């Protein structure tokens, strides 16, 4: 059975958002793209379990999120066995984030507990409602709300924002943005 071309179109249109989600979750472009690839393969293989008329984006995000969670747990065990903290080891490898802009923000995101990070990204960046985010994460709406609040507060502390003016693209980001504009 071939996948309906219209369905493929819809999936294709969601790929950029899946990537943004994966990169925000993992802080690493290569890993994120692998996650997206696995997600697409899984989605196509299980397309029959998608209920037409429901939210394809939420469905794909759920698959990706679950992939990330299981991989994260596995990696966390491996890395912690090897040399202690997963998060520290991730942050201490600058090349993982150097390809990305908004570096300070990404590093701060990386320091959030993963359940807070995913909640914040889903609601604060992907534009899902609290209800949709709760469905994606398989938890209660109230849980999502409190994770988002804690994440926001923690980011503010982490970024040490004392006034609105303090906060903005760092120098590298600005330079990269300028370079982008010239392209």
């Amino acid at each position: 059975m071939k996948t309906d071309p219209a369905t493929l179109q819809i999936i294709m249109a969601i790929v950029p958002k899946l990537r943004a989600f994966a990169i925000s979750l993992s802080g690493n472009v290569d890993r994120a793209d692998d996650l997206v690839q696995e997600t697409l393969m899984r989605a196509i293989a299980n397309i029959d379990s998608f209920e037409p008329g429901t939210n394809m984006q939420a469905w794909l995000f759920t698959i990706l999120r679950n992939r990330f969670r299981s991989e994260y747990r596995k990696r966390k065990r491996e890395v912690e066995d090897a040399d202690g903290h997963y998060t520290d080891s991730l942050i201490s490898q600058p090349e993982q984030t150097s390809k990305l802009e908004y570096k300070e923000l990404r590093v701060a995101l990386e320091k959030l507990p993963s359940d807070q990070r995913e909640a914040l990204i889903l609601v604060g960046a992907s534009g899902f409602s609290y209800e949709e985010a709760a469905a994606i994460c398989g938890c209660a709406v109230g849980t999502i709300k409190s994770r988002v609040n804690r994440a926001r507060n923690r980011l503010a502390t982490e970024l040490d924002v004392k006034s609105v003016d303090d906060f903005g693209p760092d120098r590298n980001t600005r330079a990269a943005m300028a370079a982008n504009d010239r392209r």
Partner: protein
Amino acid sequence: MSNEAVAGAKPKSGGLDRQIQAKIGQQLRAMYDEVVDQGVPDRFAELLKKLDGAQPAPKTEEESR
């Protein structure tokens, strides 16, 4: 999907806090949208085409017809 509603998610404390939270929300979305704006890398366009052609090994009788 509404962005404004999200930025407005009520912080408990005062005005500065709210502004900072709004700013963080804005940065978060800008960071995110920057990736979204990159579109679909060829890798995935090709993958989807390939996946569509090579559907999982036949599971049902009707497929062999």
